[in-house]
């Protein structure tokens, strides 16, 4: 079995994995980082979005070995101790989550959006979320949260 090494939330990790192990499996099953979720088997729901080298990526579409040497960050790595990341805080403030299952993917996607476009419009947000499904909220409050989070992130 090949060995794979990467940094996850700032820590170096290295493990032997079956070559067919997906990144999301590696995170959840090998590293116990179960905040990243699996909602589909056709790469369409976005519950599994993490950051790989700073960009959002669906971790179900990537093999763990493809992330060799990368910097991966997940929802668990966002908050600074007890202080939530501004995007997390915005979701809380604006009731941007209900069951919470899509939430990690939504938040990770949203942060990447704001990194790409620091002042997104409502339409930008809605289009950016094309790859993230939420069944609970009707997106209304997610969009509101992301717009608010974008504002705080700009400082």
């Amino acid at each position: 079995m090949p060995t794979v090494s990467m940094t996850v939330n700032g820590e170096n990790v290295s493990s032997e994995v079956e070559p067919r192990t997906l990144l999301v499996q590696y995170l959840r099953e090998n590293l116990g980082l179960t905040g990243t979720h699996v909602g589909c088997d056709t790469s369409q729901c976005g519950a599994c979005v993490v950051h790989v080298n700073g960009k959002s990526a669906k971790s179900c579409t990537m093999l763990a070995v493809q992330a060799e040497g990368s910097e991966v960050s997940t929802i668990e790595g966002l908050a600074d101790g007890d202080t939530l990341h501004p995007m997390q805080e915005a979701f809380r403030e604006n009731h941007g989550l209900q069951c919470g299952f899509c939430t990690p993917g939504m938040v990770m996607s949203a942060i990447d959006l704001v990194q790409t476009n620091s002042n997104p419009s409502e339409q930008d947000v809605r289009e950016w979320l094309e790859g993230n499904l939420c069944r609970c909220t009707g997106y209304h409050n997610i969009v509101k949260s992301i717009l608010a989070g974008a504002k705080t992130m700009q400082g």
Partner: protein
Amino acid sequence: MTETNIGAPVKRVEDKRFLTGRGRYTDDLNQPNQLYASILRSPHAHANLKKVDVSQAKAAPGVIDIFTGSDMAADEVGSLPCGWQIHSKDGSPMNEPGHPPMAVSKVRHVGDQVAIVIAETKSQARDAMEQIAVDYEVLPAAVNMDEALSGKALVHDDVPNNMCFDWEIGDKEATENSFSDAHKVVSIELINNRLIPNAMEPRAAVAQFDPSSGNYTLHTTTQNPHVIRLLMGAFVLQIPEHKLRIISHDVGGGFGSKIFHYAEEAILTWASAKVSQPIKWTAERSESFVTDAHGRDHETKADLALDKDGKFLGLRVSTKANIGAYLSTFGSSVPTYLYGTLLAGVYKTPAIYCEVKTVFTNTVPVDAYRGAGRPECTYLLERLVDKAAKETGIDPVEIRRINMIQPDQFPYQTPVALQYDVGDYPKAFETALKASDYEGFSSRREKSEGNGKKRGIGISTYIEACGIAPSAVAGALGARAGLYESAQVRVHPTGSVTLYTGTHNHGQGHETTFAQIVSDTLGIAFDQVEVSHGDTGEVQFGMGTYGSRSLAVGGPAVLKACNKIIDKAKKIAAHILEASEADIDFKDGVFSVSGTDRELAFGEVSLAAYVPHNYPIEELEPGLDENAFYDPLNFSFPAGCHICEVEIDPETGEVEVTDFTAVDDIGRVINPMIVEGQVQGGVAQGIGQALMEGCVYDKEGQLLTGSYMDYTMPRADNLPNLNVSTESVLGASNPLEVKGVGEVGSIGAPPAVINAILDALSSLGVEDISMPASPSKVWQAIHNA
């Protein structure tokens, strides 16, 4: 009102764990020595199982064991039960064929369970599954309802013509008479499209058997752990309830689809004892598509009789409902008591008759999905009312006004069994008209027309019966369970509280809403209350969460338990303060002797209860811990009006929902932030049903919409912002005066959207369109008109 009392938009306490990735969903949990299961499923809609050869697969690497339906049958595992018995018109009970957790002699839908492979790793289980050789003798499938009713292919050999039951409600004769007096009769035929619930978390289970105690523990994605314990323990596996613990911590959405007792729960629990090791199974999304119970799927013909002024005289409804291959847990109640009983809507129709033929087909079982029966009913009524408006030339607003039940008519007895307790339908209706700027529509239409677009506005009013349910009523109608709810308020010595509720939180925010009720009632700080749910090992009992019942039935149970706490605490306070109990006042967490300044804080009383040094041991037990069961006197009846505005590009058939206004009467609002979220989410699902979602089988019974590539889910960029508000009349059926909010969106929205589309296209001659109104369908309708 403080920031956390009843009525305040308190931020949710559960959010922090979800936002930091620390939720405890079933698939997140692992047990020591855990094995993994894969389930082999039928690729055929209907086939005899001639031989299941597992010999080669058993020898595959990592495989611990493989079981089939025959192994379960040999252990006398029971049939998955149905919780609601319906009787046909002729008085005969519904046909209730067996539902083995794994197929024994026959598979009846694509996705039916054939074998379970248990291996050391997930991939070993999956690899080994490929090596099971099954010899199927393929049989003709009954896929659509007409085909099924012809009886050519029998889903269950002992159910003639595949008819589960042929049910009726209402006064047939009175209804026929109303038609002979009618000035005008308006008729409609429509389909309520089959939907797949698609909670974002796929179902999962981890089962564990402890050989030393003989106890079973099942972690499962359910909305009602106690109900699963009862059904699985008593009917399927014969495990006494004290030996079986069901745990369902965080659940990633349910919408009804996680109410039911599913085969995998029984298979895993049974198999965990066979192999004496914990086993985990997690559905892949493609398994969810062919195993989670589907929703809706009705075909209906209806006629409405009107007098010369446009008043409704009578309504006649004939529906065929697809129940799928097996009776799911509540499948039989959905097209009957959750459907036919609501056909009066908010209108004064004096005579109603409805008959429903429920049909087995070789498709996934159909059961409750958000709204369950009530969206089907509302869609029918509101489409019919709009059609009546058109055919009589009366304005759609006016025809609704004329026929609406008036506020002074409550309690209002409908001709279809229900008695509405309170309401003010005209108020929500008029508020919605204002909020949507209905008056200003024509200028918006003009503007759209100027851009080459078609614009339409559509109204829907609805009523639903929720807060399910008064046990006596439910029992009389065939329910095999009571539908009360329970709560336990455990006050700890220092005055903090754990509330155990029998309802289940899978996104609704109970941990916040219920804490508001407790903190407000007991006058203690909000952060001193913790809500516990979802574990039969912790929570005394409960019937779970569905049918918008948590607050309407579970809430009063909480209130009742809190009141018992106050009563007992008053006795303790009276003793310590040396006053008579009748003189003790309780307010804002303080017990005082009326007319004096002698008082005790809540924490002092609770401490006395647990440190009974100076305590009336002879009269009172130590401790401050109370249990309550609450059974409602009536259903609660949320109602409201939804108005949708659409713009259609006639070139492409694309429908854009530009505005959506919902005004709902849901009784007292405990947390307005959560309420708005519930309505928004429901409306999104309703718009999904109207415009995008639809489940399609081919004629062999293969599911063609079996993934997110083919089943269109609403996404952020095809929904508008939603204008949501409440216009409440306090509920009269429970002491919290609440009504329920979980389902209103998915009930009210679909007809509003379709009525808007038909309004937009009526100038082009389009008279009908079916859901989902996809661009191609709209385009076709325009071109066929």
